[in-house]
């Protein structure tokens, strides 16, 4: 009996995938040429499978801010937010996020995963109820589990199912926290947030929206789905990450509940980890400024999104439910997905591949994601590559 025996099934599943599909997991970006181009296996490819929605990871102003902060404050904080790891930059970024989102309070965390873990593990405690959309990210499931709340799933974006659950659970007379995402990371669809807000009010529940993929992408000012739908004042908690449109690493939670501050004493994932590095804080802050002052980035992102979605639709590919910067191309046969994925890479286009069991229904998909910094020519090349590989 070996300590690794418990992974036998996983190892077998991995071996089976590798036998069938080859070793595709080990994609290494040898060189990053720009926010939309890299070298993989010696070959220059267009990156159409990142979360770099505004291309800010390579923005000269963000890079300069990160370099300056590193020179001034060092490469790391070497400590927890609670001890020696809160620098003035962390506090300023919290203020900037509060101002940007129109909230009274914000806490910055080391990653987006850590933000959900920190917030949910302390807010959704024993005796509370966490009611989450079935398509929610792993960090949400893990946070609720760690907190010890009773967890219930409702069918993805299914309001009838949500209401049925709320009406049953309401009888327990305890706190109910509904958890949704602004844009769902796999299928790229929006949460039905207006209907959810109505239900939350009807049943007296709380609402947390993870705007990981929607910050900088949705809303007139790029504040996310709550802004776009005009319900910002009805959302209790917003969580998010710096790792997508902000092009850095880190996470946050913003709220108009001033008691949010208690998490700084109550939340283990906040206390027992080092705070985000000065460079991440500085570039995230610069990126937030850019989101507020360069709306043309969002315009370009949506132009690229609509162009690729229209092109792929015209090829009669089975796409996600609505055009957003996350465009999944769905295949019932995983082998077909793999053939196209390999073909795309050979033609110099990288997208994400999602295979079962990571998909909910045994299908597979290629997840394309758009960036404001893709050129129209790059978008055409991506479309051409799909056309050549799927219209044989």
């Amino acid at each position: 009996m070996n300590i690794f025996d418990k992974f036998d099934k996983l190892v077998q599943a991995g071996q089976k995938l590798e036998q069938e599909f080859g070793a595709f997991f080990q994609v290494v970006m040898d060189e990053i040429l720009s926010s939309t181009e890299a070298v993989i296996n010696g070959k220059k490819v267009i990156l159409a499978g990142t979360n770099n929605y505004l291309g800010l990871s390579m923005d000269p102003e963000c890079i300069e801010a990160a370099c300056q902060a590193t020179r001034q404050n060092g490469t790391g904080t070497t400590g927890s937010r609670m001890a020696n790891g809160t620098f003035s930059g962390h506090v300023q970024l919290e203020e900037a996020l509060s101002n940007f989102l129109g909230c009274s309070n914000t806490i910055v965390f080391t990653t987006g995963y850590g933000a959900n873990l920190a917030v949910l593990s302390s807010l959704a405690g024993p005796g509370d109820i966490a009611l989450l959309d079935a398509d929610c990210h792993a960090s949400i499931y893990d946070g609720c589990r760690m907190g010890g709340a009773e967890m219930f799933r409702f069918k993805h974006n299914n309001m009838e199912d949500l209401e049925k659950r709320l009406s049953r659970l309401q009888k327990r007379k305890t706190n109910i926290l509904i958890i949704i995402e602004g844009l769902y990371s796999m299928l790229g669809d929006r949460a039905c947030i207006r209907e959810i807000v109505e239900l939350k009010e009807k049943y007296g529940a709380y609402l947390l929206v993870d705007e990981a993929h929607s910050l900088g992408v949705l809303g007139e000012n790029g504040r996310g789905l709550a802004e776009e739908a005009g319900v910002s004042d009805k959302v209790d908690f917003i969580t998010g990450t710096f790792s997508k449109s902000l092009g850095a690493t880190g996470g946050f939670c913003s709220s108009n509940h001033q008691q949010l501050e208690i998490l700084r004493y109550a939340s283990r994932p906040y206390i027992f980890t080092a705070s985000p590095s000065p460079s991440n804080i500085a570039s995230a802050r610069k990126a937030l400024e850019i989101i507020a002052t360069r709306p043309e980035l969002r315009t370009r992102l949506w132009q690229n999104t609509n162009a690729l979605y229209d092109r792929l639709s015209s090829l009669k590919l089975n796409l996600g439910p609505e055009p957003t910067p996350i465009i999944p191309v769905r295949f019932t046969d995983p082998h077909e997905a793999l053939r196209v994925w390999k073909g795309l890479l050979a033609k110099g286009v990288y997208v994400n591949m999602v295979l079962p069991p990571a998909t909910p229904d045994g299908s597979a998909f290629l997840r394309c994601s758009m960036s404001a910094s893709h050129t129209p020519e790059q978008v055409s090349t991506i479309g051409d590559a799909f056309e050549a590989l799927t219209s044989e």
Partner: protein
Amino acid sequence: MGEEREVLGKIIQILKPMVPEDTEITPETDLATDLSIDSLKSMEILAQIEDTFDISIPINVLAEVRTVEDLATQIKKLI
């Protein structure tokens, strides 16, 4: 004991249409490996069980569920 059998019977009735026609379902049947129930199907099955018994099944209890009988035991606790 009678109640347990009744719960088991109802669960098997709900499972039957979700699996290939001549699949045998016993209390010892393993839901994942014997019936290959994927996550979409499992949500549908749970929703039907919840409607049948008018209960809410927290996903926390599912970690301990492997067989049809395990599921019945958890459901009985929630009724």
